């Protein structure tokens, strides 16, 4: 379901080329033959639940962890055998890892000093980058006196001042409260874009990934399930895992009972559902639909299911109807604005366009 890519795209995506990376810990393979490409200037997220291997991949790219096999090629240079300090890849750590014994300015200057610049020569670039993240008035403060958002700005400044070939960010927003997080996301994205930085975010938060990245690699069990633009991930998830992990959905399992004219008919616990697909009759599938595409007032040619309401949540900008789930089948409908007239326990009919149906084969 990924969008078609031309040969030109393939080439331009090759700024960072992770080729056949395999990693095992104590005999357990956590990453098998990973391939992963990023274009120059692209903002990419590795998205997945904890333990999916996203941090492992980030650490391997940074050189903080050694892969068993495979290559990391950055800007045409194979950096696989280089130690972290020779890769020119900056990392923003989850806890920011600011040096507690140094001031804000000294923290930012660290990478330049490590490259042999004198303390006089680092003054100008440090001041510039601190101004960029609006932390110039804090230059001489100890880092322990900073708030979470300020610490993050310093960590970003410290990572950017050395003009890295690649910036890696490990859950950079997870230590911030929700409101601050959104502000920082917008700020950071603008900053990275303006400087043309190629960056990879590691996150378990799908909203964050969709907010900051051009493309998202959804990971599970050491594999990339799908690597695509946020809109494609949402509208055309490649697997039940992606559909579940990215966004919310109404979904139910069933069996294909008829296949004709490019339309599969699936018998589910709540009625027959049609989808644009080609399966042999008898195949076990999961069908689903995004909750905002569901209407409580369906027309005849739509898919229709009967759902008993479990809860009605009035959220202001939208009203969310929860149906009673059964097993893995979940029922969720989002209506814009405030809607009244729904009662818990009531059975309602939901419908959606056949073309909006998502369908994936599942193990029987």
């Amino acid at each position, binding site marked *: 379901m990924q969008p078609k890519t031309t040969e030109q795209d393939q080439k331009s995506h090759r700024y960072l080329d992770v080729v056949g990376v395999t990693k095992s810990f104590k005999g357990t393979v956590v990453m098998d033959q990973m391939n992963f490409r990023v274009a120059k200037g692209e903002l990419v997220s590795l998205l997945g639940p904890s333990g999916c291997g996203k941090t492992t991949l980030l650490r391997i790219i940074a050189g903080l962890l050694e892969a068993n096999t495979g290559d990391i090629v950055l800007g045409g240079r194979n950096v696989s055998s280089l130690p972290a300090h020779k890769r020119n890849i900056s990392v923003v750590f989850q*806890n920011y890892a600011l040096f507690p014994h140094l001031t804000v300015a000294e923290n930012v200057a*660290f990478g330049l000093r490590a*490259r042999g610049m004198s303390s006089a020569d680092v003054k100008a670039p440090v001041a510039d980058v601190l101004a960029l993240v609006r932390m110039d008035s804090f230059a001489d403060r100890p880092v322990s006196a900073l708030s979470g958002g300020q610490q993050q700005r310093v960590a970003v400044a410290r990572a950017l001042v050395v003009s890295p070939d690649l910036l890696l960010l490990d859950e950079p927003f997870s230590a911030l409260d929700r409101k601050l997080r959104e502000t920082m996301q917008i700020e950071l994205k603008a900053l990275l874009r303006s400087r043309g930085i190629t960056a990879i975010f590691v996150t378990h938060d799908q909203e964050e990934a969709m907010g900051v990245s051009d493309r998202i690699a959804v990971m599970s069990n050491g594999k990339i399930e799908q690597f695509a633009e946020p809109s494609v991930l949402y509208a055309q998830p490649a697997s039940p895992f992606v559909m579940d992990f990215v966004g919310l959905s109404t979904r139910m399992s069933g069996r294909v009972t008829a296949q004709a004219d490019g339309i599969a008919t699936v018998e589910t616990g709540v009625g027959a559902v049609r989808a644009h697909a080609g399966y042999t009759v008898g195949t076990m599938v999961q069908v689903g639909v995004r909750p905002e595409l569901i209407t409580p007032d369906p027309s005849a040619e739509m898919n229709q299911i009967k759902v008993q309401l479990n809860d009605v949540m009035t959220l202001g900008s939208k009203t969310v109807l929860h149906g009673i789930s059964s097993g893995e089948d979940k029922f969720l409908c989002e209506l814009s604005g405030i809607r009244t007239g729904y009662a818990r326990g009531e059975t309602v009919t939901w419908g959606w366009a056949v073309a909006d149906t998502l369908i994936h084969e599942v193990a029987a």
Partner: protein
Amino acid sequence: MNARSDRIALLAVPGLAFLAVIYALPLLLLLFKSIQGVDGLTLVTYIDFFSDEFNRTVLWRTLRVALLTTLLALVIAYPTAFAMARAKGIWLTVFLVALVLPMSLGVIVKAFAWSILFRSNGFINTTLQTLGITDEPVRMLFTETALVIGAANVFLPFMVLPIYSVIRQLNSSLPEAASSLGATPWFRFTRVTLPLSLPGVVAGSAFTFSLAISMYVIPSLIVGERQQTLSMLIARSFLYLRNEPLGSTISAVLLVIAIFVVLFSSWLAGRLGARQ
């Protein structure tokens, strides 16, 4: 301070009372004795003590031995503490046992074991001669060198453990952040790990120096009467010379040095801590 933390402060009362009666009170009596003359208070014992060249030699030797012991222990302890902080599972246990077990072995046993090692027909001299490095046995027993080596050995755990606990608590992403910023292992060590481990170094050095400056059993056994230290002078004054004012005076001198070490190390630790 709210009422609750005031009540919690009461928990320190038993400890403070114990220290006051068993430590502070006898010490004050001792100090009083050092300035108690036949008719009123006097500093004559102090003047006598410092005007005697032998005493000044002993004082200087005591300070020198304590300093060298601290330095030797630090040089050996720092890499050890580093390795321990990185050790896991069984290896950490091995390290800790190797460090703590010798403490349970009395100093007397160790001292006699060393004399087998250090004496003129001992293991080291035999080895040196067999290898042809020396013709004559090297005199090691009853020397200051042997004393420093022995003392550093006994006090090593007091240097290793504080440094170990500080390095152990270092955020492991700090050296990683340094590497990703382009720092070579040496730059990373000198600019990040070493400065952050200094509080442990200060604490360990203060422990070791305080112990080394007041040690009595180790020098008595290793160097005997030939190379006396302040503690041995104190013991001699009280036990053999029955000169309580002299013994009290030397004790006071030792106490002043100890207080200075404690204050200096707290100041240093505070200064290092303030930056973090």
